[in-house]
């Protein structure tokens, strides 16, 4: 059943809210010409209508809590409920960001521990928790790289090298930081083309941005060579930590030679994805970049009578910082969730994360290959994710990756990431994560085989998908051409 817009339930004069003061106080302290006459365009609905509307809408979503959601590069693992419970404890959610440190020791203590644990899992020297998503972490990282070069008078280093398989945020970030993007190709085996890299390195090189394991689902084996080459050329190395889940407790980006890293806490550390966010893109650096870390950072002051005191370090203590990235300290509530998750798992639990994430990915890849699907890198071990290319099936049957994706929805699975990375044609990037069972993966294989077989038999039938979702395939072209971005009924 189609759910109307909330505005369609609205009628002028529905009885007043119980959620606001009973009376309208006078706005008598303000000049009349600063005020608005009326506010139309918000719905007037009852609490029941609101609850019913948004409950029904929620049921139209696929989500981890309802479906297997193997969206590659996004680490859609289970979000433990206790993390939310803790982050919503009254004293935490009611704490004002500018409240004095004395009244925030509980929160700051957690944040200090979080910083320490993040150092341990990255091998970096210091952490700043402030970036609010991966892309902002990238911004912080590249801005630090620039600040580093500038501080050394190295003003010409403006090029950021990015492999062609990189996530779109990498080149976009470089541009936002006023850098120039230089793309280098990937070799047939999935590793970076070292010769091409050599070719672009030089005195203009600010640094390189790498994901390892890469978005191709393989571990970059020559990472140490790459690090040596870039450092020799005077550049720095940026680690895009979106895939940290694959190597948690197995290898440290710091050991690989990276100077700066961001981590998506909403991926590896399982804070909720919330229908698009919020996330957290905390950054870590080695000594080189330490002075430039964005503020604030949580510090500790030893005080006389035993107990330590946790404090904010700001621009005062960190004059070379690239500065602030958010009005306050970033996505504190998300950081708290990650703190709970990390303390729950502990050191051994974290090693198991990468162990089972990798096991699940390699198993699913093996099963799909054995079922006749084409892996993009069949000779390689999968990391926590892997790529299947449907280009042969697409050629034979005209059923393409998008059709597969929609047919999966009808079978109760959220589709993997489609058409990314762009260099593999007709690709599915599949990331099962460690929280799924073997039995769920088997069911996914069955669905894939069923769709493939149907495609060979009756391709038009597959192209009709999805049939069981609240709407069928949507007209994206019309959406972009005949823009309808807000309810016109106002």
């Amino acid at each position, binding site marked *: 059943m189609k759910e109307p*817009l909330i505005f369609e339930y609205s009628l002028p004069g*529905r009885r007043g809210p119980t*959620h606001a*003061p009973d009376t309208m106080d006078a706005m008598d302290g*303000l000049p009349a010409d*600063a*005020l608005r006459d009326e506010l139309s365009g918000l719905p*007037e609905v009852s609490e029941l209508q609101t609850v019913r509307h948004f409950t029904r*809408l929620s*049921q139209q*979503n*696929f989500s981890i809590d309802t479906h297997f959601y193997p969206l590659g590069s996004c680490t859609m*693992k289970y979000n*433990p409920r*206790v993390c*939310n419970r803790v982050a919503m*404890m009254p*004293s935490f959610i*009611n704490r004002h*960001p*500018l*409240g004095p440190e004395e009244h925030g020791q509980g*929160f700051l203590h957690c944040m200090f521990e979080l910083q320490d644990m993040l150092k*341990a899992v990255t091998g970096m020297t210091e952490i700043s928790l402030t970036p*609010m998503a991966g892309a902002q972490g990238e911004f912080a990282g590249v801005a630090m790289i620039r600040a580093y070069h500038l501080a050394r008078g190295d003003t010409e280093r403006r090029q950021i090298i990015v492999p062609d398989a990189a996530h*779109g945020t990498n080149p976009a970030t470089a541009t*936002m*930081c006023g850098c120039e993007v230089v793309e280098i190709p990937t070799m047939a085996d999935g590793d970076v083309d070292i010769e091409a890299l050599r070719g672009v390195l030089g005195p203009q090189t600010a640094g390189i941005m790498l994901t390892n394991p890469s978005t191709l689902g393989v571990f970059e084996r020559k990472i*140490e060579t790459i690090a040596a080459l870039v450092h020799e050329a005077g550049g720095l190395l940026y680690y895009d930590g979106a895939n940290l889940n694959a190597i948690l407790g*197995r290898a440290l980006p710091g050991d690989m030679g990276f100077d700066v890293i961001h981590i998506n806490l909403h991926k590896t550390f399982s804070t909720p994805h*919330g*229908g*698009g*966010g*919020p996330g957290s893109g905390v950054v870590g650096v080695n000594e080189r970049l330490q002075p430039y870390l964005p503020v604030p950072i949580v510090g500790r002051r030893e005080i006389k009578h035993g107990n330590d005191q946790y404090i904010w370090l700001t*621009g005062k203590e960190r004059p070379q910082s690239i*500065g*602030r990235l*958010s009005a306050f300290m970033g996505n504190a*509530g998300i950081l708290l969730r990650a703190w709970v998750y990390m303390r*729950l798992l*502990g*050191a051994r*639990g974290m090693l*198991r994360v990468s162990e089972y994430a990798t*096991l699940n990915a390699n*198993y699913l890849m*093996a099963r799909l290959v*054995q079922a006749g699907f084409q892996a993009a890198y069949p000779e390689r071990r999968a990391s926590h994710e892997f790529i299947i290319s449907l280009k042969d099936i697409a050629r034979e049957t005209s059923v393409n990756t998008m059709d597969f994706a929609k047919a999966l929805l009808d079978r109760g699975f959220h589709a993997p*990431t489609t058409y990314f990375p762009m260099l593999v044609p007709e690709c599915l990037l599949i990331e099962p994560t460690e929280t799924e069972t073997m039995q769920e993966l088997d069911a996914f294989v069955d669905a894939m085989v069923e769709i493939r077989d149907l495609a060979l038999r009756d391709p038009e039938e597959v192209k009709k998908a*999805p049939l069981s979702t609240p*709407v*069928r395939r949507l007209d*994206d072209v019309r959406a*972009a051409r*005949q*823009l*309808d*971005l*807000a309810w016109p009924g106002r």
Partner: protein
Amino acid sequence: MPFIPHTNDDVAAMLDIIGAQSTEELFQEIPASLRITELAGVPEGMSEADISRLAQQRAAHDGGVVSFIGAGAYEHYIPAAVWDLATRGEFYSAYTPYQAEASQGTLQLVYEYQSMMVALTGLDVSNASLYDGATAFAEACLMAVRANRKSQSRRVVTTRAMHPAYRSVAQTILSNQGIELVELPIRNGTTDLDALAALEGEDFAAVCIQQPGFLGTIEAVDEMTDQAHAANRLVIAVCNPLALAVLKPPGSWGEAGADIACGEGQPLGIPLSSGGPYFGYMTCRKSLVRQMPGRIVGRTVDVDGTPGFTLTLQAREQHIRRSKATSNICTNQGLMVTAATIHMSLLGAEGLRRTAARCHANTRSLAAKLAQLDGVSIAFEQYFHEAVICLDQPVAPVLEALSAHGILGGYDLSDDYPELGNAMLVCATDARSEQEIETYVTCMRDVLAGVQAV
């Protein structure tokens, strides 16, 4: 083993299919020189009961205070239904609606959100959120520089009446692209219009106006907007969205209205939470939509002609446009938008207006009562829901003394605005009761007396 569902039999069967002897073997492509086998520095795991107890102990340190701090983050009553609904698993554990047909819940909700923000700001289109108010402001400046066809300038006019943290975040972000923020001084708590007039003839991409200003005061938005447009500058409005329930919307400023509005969405149902997650909102004129950063949801139809919702104008975004994208933002603040949309639906226009008016009345009452104390005065007469209070002595020790009584008395302005003297910003929202206001005033009287006594 927390959250990992594999039985030993499963693992054996899986390794068998893979053709590996052990899970260790799966990591063989990591060079041996890089392999580690333990994580020193991470404590051992704990049970859910133990972490809950530990968190409870930590949280116990942070509660029990009554706050009169605003300064960009505001405590408002949030109806119980808001977070009950927003944390439903289907919202909480979904991601960006890449598969539109499997995400109509989130997509329709965002479309409704966009519609509400358009209503509040009086502009044409909205995006689906940015990180927070400060980054939304920075993105608005970048957008204005890109979008202003009539100007070649990489300079933007801002003002000391704007939130200092917003200015500093914008500085962090804009400086990398060599965009310059030119800051106007304040007079009487609002932007010094003479200083603005003195910029006549100079080329700027945009003029930024915060309404109400950081100091709670009311800017001459109509005059400033018209003047900016006359000089081919775009107007960026930075507004508390709750204030917009009662204040003139940016789309109606001056003759033509502001071009871009942005700000902090937190007052719309988001808890204080030590500073985040909040969300930045942004709306603009239709003609600028292709320069807008962030995701946008559009309404369209499916193959059967049924209306449905989908992400649109993605060609602006990094995953398609890569280095030429309007912004690098990818993950946004979706869950907060979910809560805000539910919050606005529950309160409606009337509820938001009453809440805004109650904040105004409460702060007026608090300020008036404080001003009756010896050595306390109100700096500026017109303000929305924050007032600058001047003391006859340094602010910091007074705030500290109040804090010892469990009262967070306000935001000390001495660092950011030394020109205001011993000044602080106080805020009494709808969440503060009359009795709490009384307690504050009484406490302040005692504290001031105590300090004077010494």
